[in-house]
C-alpha cells in the first residue's frame, strides 16, 4: 500500500470518528440504516491499550502531510500549529474514550491534571509557553508545536513494534 493511500485511509478514519456524531443537515444524502451500520463496522475500534496507541499513531501521522498543504496555501505558522494541535488533541481524547478501563482513563486524567492543571493534557497556550521557556522564539515556537503534534514517538514505536497503518517498518 502506498504512503499516500495509507494517509488517505487514516484521514478518512479520523474524519469518520470526528464528525460521525454530527446531525444530518438539509441537503445531505440520507443513507439506509443498514449501509450506515456497515460503514461503522468497517472502522473497527481498538480494544487493548496497545491497539489504541497504534490507532492514535495512525491519526496523527497525517499531520505532516496536512502541514505541507497548509504551507502551500500560505497558512501562518501559528494557525498551522493550532490546526495541528486540534487534530492531535481530538485524537488524544478519542483514544482515551476507546479505553476499556474507565479507571485507567481516570488515572490518565489525574496525571494530566497534576502536570498541566487540565485533565485532557496541555493547552495550546501551555505548549507555546513551554517552547518559549525552551529558548524558542517567533515562528520557531509554532513550528515546534506542528512537529511535535505529528510525532509518533518513534523511539517507542520502534521498541514496541508499533507501525503506521498498513506499514512494514
Amino acid at each position, binding site marked *: 500500500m502506498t504512503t499516500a493511500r495509507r494517509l488517505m485511509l487514516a484521514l478518512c478514519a479520523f474524519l469518520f470518528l470526528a464528525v460521525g456524531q454530527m446531525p444530518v443537515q438539509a441537503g445531505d444524502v440520507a443513507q439506509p440504516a443498514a449501509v450506515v451500520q456497515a460503514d461503522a463496522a468497517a472502522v473497527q475500534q481498538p480494544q487493548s491499550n*496497545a491497539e489504541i496507541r497504534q490507532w492514535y499513531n495512525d491519526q496523527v501521522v497525517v499531520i505532516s502531510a496536512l502541514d505541507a498543504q497548509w504551507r502551500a496555501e500560505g497558512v501562518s505558522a501559528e494557525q498551522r500549529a493550532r490546526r495541528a494541535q486540534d487534530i492531535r488533541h481530538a485524537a488524544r481524547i478519542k483514544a482515551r474514550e476507546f479505553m476499556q478501563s474507565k479507571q485507567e482513563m481516570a488515572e490518565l486524567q489525574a496525571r494530566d491534571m497534576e502536570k498541566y492543571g487540565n485533565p485532557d493534557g496541555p493547552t495550546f497556550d501551555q505548549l507555546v509557553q513551554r517552547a518559549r521557556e525552551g529558548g524558542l522564539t517567533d515562528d520557531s515556537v509554532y513550528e515546534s508545536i506542528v512537529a511535535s503534534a505529528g510525532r509518533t514517538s518513534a523511539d517507542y514505536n520502534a521498541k514496541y513494534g508499533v507501525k503506521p497503518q498498513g506499514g512494514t517498518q
Partner: protein
Amino acid sequence: MTLAQLCDRPVLWRRTGKGEFPYVATVAGQDWLIRINDFPVEPMYTLLIDGREVGDFDDWPGGWQRPEDA
C-alpha cells in the same frame, strides 16, 4: 529478569495518592513503582525498580493486583 517475566509475577500494589506515580509495591525487598506516561503518545506505564526504569508497557498485567481490583 525481563520485563515480561516481571509482569508475570503476582504483585500486590498500593496507592500513593500521586497522579504521575499512582502505585507502589514491595517485591523481594525491592521498591517497585509505576509511572503513568503521556498515553497515547507514549506507552501507558513505566515500571521502576529501586528508582531505575525497567521497561514500558501499555496493558496492565493480569497478575498485578491494584487496590481497586481486590
